[in-house]
């Protein structure tokens, strides 16, 4: 396990103050300061404890089902003229990469003596992954979810409830991921002592972006081993991932960040098109600002009010981006593309028919851009298939009736 490697001093990892270049930090009101400080002071100590690592590793193996397969998608490769491997996070327990982080954070919460867990969720995958580890560890669990997302991701709401979580609707703003996160943070302010907030993406105040990235870094750790075995080389030419807040991308990039021969591609949600007024492509539309206590790129009005984003995918429907990714964008280390709602739907349909895999709408955004990356025929490409599409069946059926029936 490399989650506890000392990466300070690396150009692309967090620095001692919690920044990636000019992005990051912890812009929290005093009411939240002790909670965040407790995490800052303890997270690396806990992650470095061999007993913690052993427990984390064992749960990832026996409970989550890791390592997740690295699958050479032959028909997809033929179509896009490269060797395309899918990192099958969709095969994890609960159906997405989110569980890697929730397993890590629940073990951390236990070591901090917390008895109550809260989380935000967009697509519901993080909510389900949190409710799952809470059931496993017998902890009280409250999940905040935007009212709009409760509608469009109904199967996951049912799963969370069956797992014993209380699901609270966030009714302010656009009633999506941003608003659910606001409510979770307010809950944490009101319950500063007994509660741990399991944030589900590589965003929020330091140390969350770094902590979540470390828990997700198991993805790239495995890719290296698996690729070496399959191709004789540990490094691919490309790593491609979708970005909401950026946790699956952070995990897929992590051990390649300082390997300049590995090209990193990030795909944001273009919504109805970057300039349509209905988009969540933060790097294209955002300016420097503060969202959820992190200084990063942010979609906002000229008066500094946060803009309501749009994406067909609840997990990408967020007006910010994790500070690591803002830094990768600004330094040019990663290339940022975006896929529209329609392109993502088409890509989901295509993968289903080519490979017999129904992907999550979020992951479909990454798939949608395979045709726009200038691959050479021998290139080795790893695409992080962050989740499965069960939760999105209603959307798939509604939007592609003639193709599915």
């Amino acid at each position, binding site marked *: 396990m490399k989650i506890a490697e000392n990466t300070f001093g690396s150009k692309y990892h967090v620095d001692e103050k919690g920044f990636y270049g000019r992005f990051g930090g912890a812009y929290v009101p005093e009411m939240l300061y002790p909670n965040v400080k407790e995490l800052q002071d303890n997270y690396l100590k806990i992650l470095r404890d061999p007993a913690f690592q052993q427990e984390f590793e064992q749960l990832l193996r026996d409970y989550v089902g890791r390592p997740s397969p690295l699958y050479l998608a032959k028909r997809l490769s033929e179509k896009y003229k490269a060797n395309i491997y899918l990192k099958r996070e969709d095969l994890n327990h609960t159906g997405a990469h989110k569980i890697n982080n929730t397993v890590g954070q629940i073990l951390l919460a236990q070591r901090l003596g917390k008895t109550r867990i809260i989380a935000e969720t967009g697509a519901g995958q993080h909510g389900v992954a949190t409710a799952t580890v809470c059931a496993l560890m017998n902890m009280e669990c409250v999940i905040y979810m935007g009212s709009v997302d409760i509608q469009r991701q109904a199967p996951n709401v049912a799963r969370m409830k069956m797992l014993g979580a209380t699901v609270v609707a966030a009714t302010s*703003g656009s009633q999506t991921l941003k608003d659910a996160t606001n409510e979770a943070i307010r809950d944490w302010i009101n319950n500063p002592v007994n509660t741990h907030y399991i944030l589900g993406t590589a965003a929020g105040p330091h140390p969350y972006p770094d902590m979540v990235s470390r828990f997700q870094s198991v993805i790239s750790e495995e890719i290296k081993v698996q690729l070496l075995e399959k191709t004789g080389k540990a490094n691919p030419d490309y790593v491609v991932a979708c970005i909401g807040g950026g946790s699956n991308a952070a995990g897929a990039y992590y051990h390649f960040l300082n390997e300049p021969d590995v090209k990193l591609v990030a795909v944001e949600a273009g919504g109805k098109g970057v300039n349509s007024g209905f988009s969540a492509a933060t790097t294209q539309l955002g300016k420097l*600002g503060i969202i959820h206590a992190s200084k990063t790129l942010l979609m906002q009005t000229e008066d*500094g009010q946060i803009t309501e984003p749009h994406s067909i995918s609840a997990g990408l429907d967020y007006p910010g981006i994790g500070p690591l990714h803002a830094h990768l964008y600004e330094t040019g280390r990663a290339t940022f593309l975006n896929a529209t709602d329609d392109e993502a739907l088409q890509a989901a349909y295509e993968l289903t028919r080519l490979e017999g895999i129904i992907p999550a709408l979020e992951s479909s955004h990454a798939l949608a851009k395979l045709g726009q990356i200038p691959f050479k025929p021998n290139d080795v490409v790893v695409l992080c298939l962050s989740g499965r599409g069960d939760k999105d069946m209603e959307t798939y059926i509604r939007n592609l009736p003639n193709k599915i029936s």
Partner: protein
Amino acid sequence: MSNRIDQLFASKKTGILNIYCTAGFPELNDTLPVMTALQQNGADLIELGMPFSDPLADGPVIQESSTRAIKNGMSVRKLFEQLKDFRLNIHVPVILMGYLNPVLLYGIENFCKKCAEVGVDGVILPDLPMDEYESDYKAIFEQYGLHLIFLVTPETSDERIRKIDSLSKGFVYAVSSSSTTGKDKDMGNQQAYFEKLKQLQLKNPVLIGFGIKDKATFDAACAYSNGAIIGTAFIRAIENTTNLPAAIKDFIAGVK
């Protein structure tokens, strides 16, 4: 000229009433009428909220007032327009309170300059970290004679309270309980915390805020501090009124 906040605390040591109101609320052009009525009826200090779309530390009442003010067209820019000549009539100290993002986008230096130009005395930016203030912005605030006021909570360590006191100017804002604004948490258990604040003998005066809503809670807070701050209860009192001056008069009469 010395800062109006300092003048106030030099002349009055107890029972200071600070009222918070979101700017541009209930209607866009109510900012000045609200301030005028507050001064007339004996508020000692006025805290104007600069509305933000995502106010993390606020409960539903102040959130809704912010949403409404933004819909009305309020912004940092608009607020400075409204405040252009307010010192012709308003003499009590005025503090602007808001989240960092809109101020950052406006530009910290620009913002401080504008505050000084129109006659604002202090600023509260709850999500501005102390260290960053000290290294990047303190000199600018001081250049424009603007006081930055920091918050302490029951969970803040003594050592940190000392640091906050050393960086704050004007007063220290003691949050009564660890909560978002407008939560009805019992102030009864906070005596030890208030007592501690008193014993620490801070260099700044202390005002207590969060959960102050009527005469009983105001008096209880004043027993331990130089005064108190009322926000949510005031917003509630004026949000649906058809007679703003009368509602404000009644509200303050009920507290003092």
